[in-house]
């Protein structure tokens, strides 16, 4: 059943996924095992994106299906949204109110079992610092669609570097016009060309 579920999710078969999750819950399958199958499906989605079989629209749909599936499991698992792979703090930087790319990254990281603290949009540098201190996160993701976000990214990274944090922090940036030139300018450790790249980076930095 687990293989069937992960395959249905990877195939973006929304109705099949939700029916399978409900059927497995009704049959007494451990909700954690069901969640694991769903996450395996998301891994397959990521692989299909890497190979060029899937595109952003497929990621959006997969994320929507995963979210519904975990909502069905929520009451049984007492999910609090946290993952066990580590904590990632993420937000759209000060002065920029765009959230679509950031939200996609948040969904993919949660599906990959990361505990994501989503700070929203127009986030001042100090807020990132405060939440990193509070959570002990070792990865921060900064998002920005507009070129005006570059200076805010730079200021945020400077604030993180200047702060006394519980552990060293890696910073990844992403957004429509982010390039390696921007990464170097703002002092980030890496940039993502697309949302799944954030998962790859976190896997390198935290999980592996």
């Amino acid at each position, binding site marked *: 059943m687990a293989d069937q579920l992960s395959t249905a999710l990877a195939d*973006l078969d*929304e109705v099949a996924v939700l029916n399978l999750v409900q059927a497995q819950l009704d049959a007494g399958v451990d909700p954690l095992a069901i969640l694991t199958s769903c996450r395996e499906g998301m891994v397959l989605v990521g692989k299909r994106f890497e190979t060029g079989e899937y595109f952003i629209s497929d990621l*959006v*749909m997969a994320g929507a299906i995963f979210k519904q599936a975990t909502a069905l499991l929520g009451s049984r698992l007492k999910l609090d949204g946290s993952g066990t792979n580590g904590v990632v703090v993420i937000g759209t930087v000060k002065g*920029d*109110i765009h959230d679509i790319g950031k939200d996609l990254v948040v969904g993919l990281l949660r599906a990959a079992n990361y505990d994501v603290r989503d700070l929203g949009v127009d986030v001042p540098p100090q807020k990132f610092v405060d939440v990193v201190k509070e959570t002990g996160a070792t990865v921060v993701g900064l998002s920005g669609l*507009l*070129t005006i976000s570059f*200076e805010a990214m730079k200021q945020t990274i400077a604030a993180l570097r200047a702060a006394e944090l519980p552990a060293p922090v890696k910073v990844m940036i992403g957004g429509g016009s982010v390039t390696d030139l921007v990464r170097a300018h703002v002092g980030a450790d890496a940039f993502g060309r697309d949302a799944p790249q954030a998962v790859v980076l976190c896997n390198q930095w935290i999980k592996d």
Partner: protein
Amino acid sequence: MSNQTLYQERLTRIKHAINLEPVDRIPVVYMGSAFSPRYMGMSIAKYCADPDAAMDVTLAAMQRLGDLDGCNLIPAGRITVILTGQWLSRIAVPGRDLPADSLWQVQEAEMMTVEDYDTIINQGWRAFEASFMPRVIDMAEVRANDKWLMANLAGVYQRFRDNGFVPISGGGTTMPFEFLCGARSMPRFYQDLYRIPNKVKAAMDVMMPDMIQMGLGGARLSGAPGTWVGGWRSASALLAPKLWDKFVFPYLHQIVTALSDNQVLSVLHFDQNWDRDLARLRELPAKKCILNLDSLTDVRKAKEILGDRMAIMGDVPSSLFAMGAPDDIANYVRDLARDVGPTGLILCPGCDAPINTKPENMETFVAAAHTYGVVA
């Protein structure tokens, strides 16, 4: 040389580029909506609130920059009202919702419901649009802008011509995809494409005649050779091929063909990456389009695939304008002219030079276009 003579010389140069004919120099075209006021010391709030000021400051910026052949998009009307109409979303306006000298921003949210597709299908696009717009804008703003456009639109374009600059496009339209995507919000709309494809397609089919008329109207009222046909969320990199084939290309083809049949050039203002489907664009009428890229599409691949079908306009990256050094800009223009020119190329900022473009970078862009654009 008189402005009239300059205008004719520049128009001829641009027409040669569009027709893929030899040019004496690669045309260089301006686009810097928010850069213009910043460059000339005007607040962004004033630029947004006062369409006369927006026109004046754009013209002044172009005159200060020097020998530009034309302008990709002429500011005609209040930009935030125009953007609301294009995105069907609320726009955060400088001086009202944002600090006076900050950039306007689209506040994308799910403003259109799934049930609204039925309204479009049953009552038509215009009826839906009329009922929808108050959800995203104060209609008094729309009426004020319409009044200004009725009184001034033709004169705006003429002013640019009188100053020797060629308006490349007037007004604009896009595929139904983009309007619906903006109104529903990108995540919701993308999910609609999987969940209720037939309903979405039925709505798109109903919308098409109005989309075509919008493009024809913009060109007619402005007297410009072309009209904008925008594409951003419909880009190849964002959509599964089966979705692109069903919801994007048939509509793009219809619009471009209809405009072409009416002697209107389509300025394909394509943001994001369209690499995968460049070959499909060969199906569009030859020499009736300009492919206007923002640097995310591989411009050299575009040249290779489409070089005998349409001119390419662009594609100096916005991040380079904002973060790069003048040498970076000059080198980019040099390489672009060498690899994509000299025929069938119009040099232009990719998408729109950003608000934080360094003035020296824009000045270098214009100078480099003259240095490297001259055909020996």
